[in-house]
């Protein structure tokens, strides 16, 4: 009698353990038994997703080490091409020249938009495309001209290596000029915090980064929200890519695979981007 209870008990415990384990490890199981280091660099929009994925992977398997650096899409593509990192992230699709020169493999795991943001204290919430172009070109210089207070506009931009800049420049500014008076920041995170601090600022940032510390601005009446990006209404959209030199191998392959699993896509959605699956 006693033995039987014990056996049943053990069986139950065993089942829960096995079952619980498999449920918890369903997608992370990819990394079972792996070890080594994985170097990631490039696009700054990717960082929150990469960080969360790394956190889960390393918690699951502490033998793996993952280093994540920013630097911008241009840097990511060049560094992976030169073999300095294993995965180079970019917020724009690498161009044909880059792909053929380095033999890049391109993996898209999320869709993102690039939205215009202003300080929440600023009443302006909507601009026409022409106004946007004029503001960034430095032709409109006061908030008063577009329905705000009588303050000079502080334009913030990103450096040339930025994929966010490349997409915004092409799709929102139609390759128009960016004022030489613009302030420079080095990442999406940097853009968000600069705008949050400066009441007269305007800049562009990955939609995934927009929260209540900054206010999003609609272009021609379409707001840069996740829904509008998903439905294709918001035109200044782009994919988030991870690139490898040649066919990905080892940990790089598994990380990219993981990002495309339901777990990985949950992280993507959780960090404010549109999943691709």
């Amino acid at each position, binding site marked *: 009698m006693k033995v039987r209870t014990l056996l049943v008990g053990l069986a139950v415990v065993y089942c829960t353990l096995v079952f619980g384990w498999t449920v918890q490890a369903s997608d992370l199981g990819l990394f079972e038994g792996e070890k080594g280091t994985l170097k990631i660099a490039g696009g700054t929009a990717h960082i929150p997703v990469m960080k969360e994925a790394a956190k889960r992977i390393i918690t699951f398997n502490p033998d793996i080490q993952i280093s994540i650096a920013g630097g911008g899409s241009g840097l990511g593509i*060049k560094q992976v091409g030169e073999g300095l990192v294993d995965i180079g992230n970019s917020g724009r699709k690498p161009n044909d020249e880059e792909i053929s020169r380095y033999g890049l493999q391109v993996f898209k795991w999320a869709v993102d938009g690039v939205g215009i943001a202003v300080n929440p204290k600023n009443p302006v919430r909507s601009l026409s495309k022409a106004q946007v172009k004029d503001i960034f070109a430095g032709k409109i210089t006061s908030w008063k001209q577009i329905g705000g207070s009588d303050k000079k506009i502080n334009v913030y931009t990103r450096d040339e290596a930025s994929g966010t800049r490349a997409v915004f420049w092409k799709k929102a500014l139609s390759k128009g000029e960016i004022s*030489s008076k613009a302030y*420079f*920041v*080095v990442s999406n995170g940097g853009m968000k915090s600069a705008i949050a601090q400066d009441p*007269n*600022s305007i800049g562009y940032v990955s939609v995934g980064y927009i929260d209540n510390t900054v206010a999003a601005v609609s272009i021609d009446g379409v707001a840069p929200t996740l829904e509008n990006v998903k439905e294709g209404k918001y035109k200044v959209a782009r994919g988030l890519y991870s690139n490898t030199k040649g066919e990905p191998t080892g940990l790089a392959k598994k990380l990219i695979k993981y990002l495309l699993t339901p777990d990985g896509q949950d992280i993507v959605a959780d960090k404010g981007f549109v999943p691709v699956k």
Partner: protein
Amino acid sequence: MIRIYEKLIEKLLLFSAAVSASVTILIFGFLVILGLPIIKGGHFFHLLTEPWSPYDGMYGIYPMVIGTLSIAFLGVLFGFPLSLGCASLISVLGPKPVRRFLKKVVQLMTGIPTVIYGFVGIFLLVPFIRELFQEGSGMCVLSASLMLAVLVSPTMILFFIDSFDQVPKSYLDAVDSIGGSRIQKFLYVILPCAWKGVLTGLILGLGRALGDTLIVLMIAGNTVQVPGSVMDSARSLTSQIALVMAADYESPEFKSIFTCGIVLYLFTTIVVIGVRTLAMTRRRSRP
């Protein structure tokens, strides 16, 4: 046996001295070799006067040269009177407890990391300047040079004190014996005797300001333009290296940062040679 051992050690010491000194040349060599494509094309001086506009194929660093010079000179301009005042207080004018306290503070300041000045600058000085002048974002030449003034002051103050202390005691006794006040002692005896030391300290401060990266990178706004006023944002040569470095390294942009490196190297070398020349004449003329 012992002789061979001694010779061997001497050679080893010579070797380490040669290695460490050659690093100085090696750095310059690397900058020149990697910047060679630009220098060879005869573009070096061209780049110094051209604007920066990568989309138009112009990689000039003129705005950054001006940015560096204006921020550094302004920083020293703010820092110099402050330092001279503090140094005079520490070595002559102040009562003893004040002197000792102030000197300790200044010495401790030399240990404060630059990144901390930058960090506090972003959250304290930049909003303050923005609210005060109601113009721009507060990230400007003025903010950066004010912070730089705080950064370079300890260097200058300690050097000033040092040169004040080298004024012969007999001179000071002479002033005391004719009943001169402390301020008169400072103004008419110490300062004229120690002016070369003051100049040296000033140049050293300038060298420190020219080479700083973090403060300028964090609070000058990094705009690529020749600043028209102190309220304008600017980019320095050092920030240019840090920012473009974060870009890629096949491009002409990347090659141009070696020009920045060469210019910075030359600036600071000129400063060092200036200081050494002054020190040499100072030593000769010392009574």
